[in-house]
């Protein structure tokens, strides 16, 4: 019983210190979990805010696409608005690279013939 009292007294006298230690442990665990999630998802791979990705950040398209409201009438104006947004996005997609095979050909890598 005296042992239990002594332990209780030990923790009671150091509540603030223990609270700080506990908070640090929780923060550490949460940070590890967050970084793990960041690594698992595409986020880390495509994060343009990283310091070594200035060139990508500046080249990535930044123009905001207007939203099309999910509710409302389906009249000629709304159809025209939708078509404008759709065509704008489609044109932007057509202008982007398509992962063509040439970039990895032996000729472009200068390592001899293909195969």
């Amino acid at each position, binding site marked *: 019983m005296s042992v239990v009292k002594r332990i209780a007294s030990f923790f009671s006298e150091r509540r603030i210190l223990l609270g700080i230690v506990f908070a640090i442990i929780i923060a550490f665990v949460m940070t590890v979990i967050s970084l793990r999630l960041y690594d698992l998802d595409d986020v880390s791979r495509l994060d343009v805010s990283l310091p070594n990705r200035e060139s990508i950040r500046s080249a990535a398209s930044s123009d905001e696409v207007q939203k099309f409201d999910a509710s409302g009438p389906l009249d000629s104006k709304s159809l025209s608005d939708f078509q404008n947004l759709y065509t704008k996005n489609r044109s932007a997609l057509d202008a982007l690279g398509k*992962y063509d*095979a040439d970039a990895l050909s032996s000729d472009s890598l*200068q390592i*001899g013939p293909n195969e």
Partner: protein
Amino acid sequence: MKRVVPVIAVVLALLSTPFVRAEGSLSDAQLDAIRTNCVNAQISLQHVQESDKLTRINRGYRYESMLKLMTSFNSRVAENKVDAPDLISIASEYQRTWDSFRTEYSNYDDAMTALTQIDCKNEPTTFNDQLVALRIKRTGLNSRVKEFDTLLDKYQTGVNDVRQAQEKSK
């Protein structure tokens, strides 16, 4: 003795097959070309990787915008009680294609990173094998892009049908 000789011949043939294939896949000249130029090739691959990443970011942004547009348009079509089941199925297929594209790009990017880190001067065959595998993954991404284009064309046709139906109903 007469029976043993063919058996030994078959066993020897089977044992030598992998070596014959290994030599047959890449000539000495090709191996030398890889050893000589692979470090520069790895630098080129890093540039391709950066360029691909930019394409992935921009395509991802546009594909997601298109998906939001489709979802909103489908909701509006449903709200106005217009019958267009094709639009919903195309949007679902588009979502599946988008999920596959994301996964395939991640696999491709991992394979690219691995290829740029190989000690290619000492392992030219491994470098070549992984390059061949990477090309297959890239072809897969190219096919996905074409798949997206086909789906977007189909969706456009569906939208045109809705427009015509609305004009007729007036």
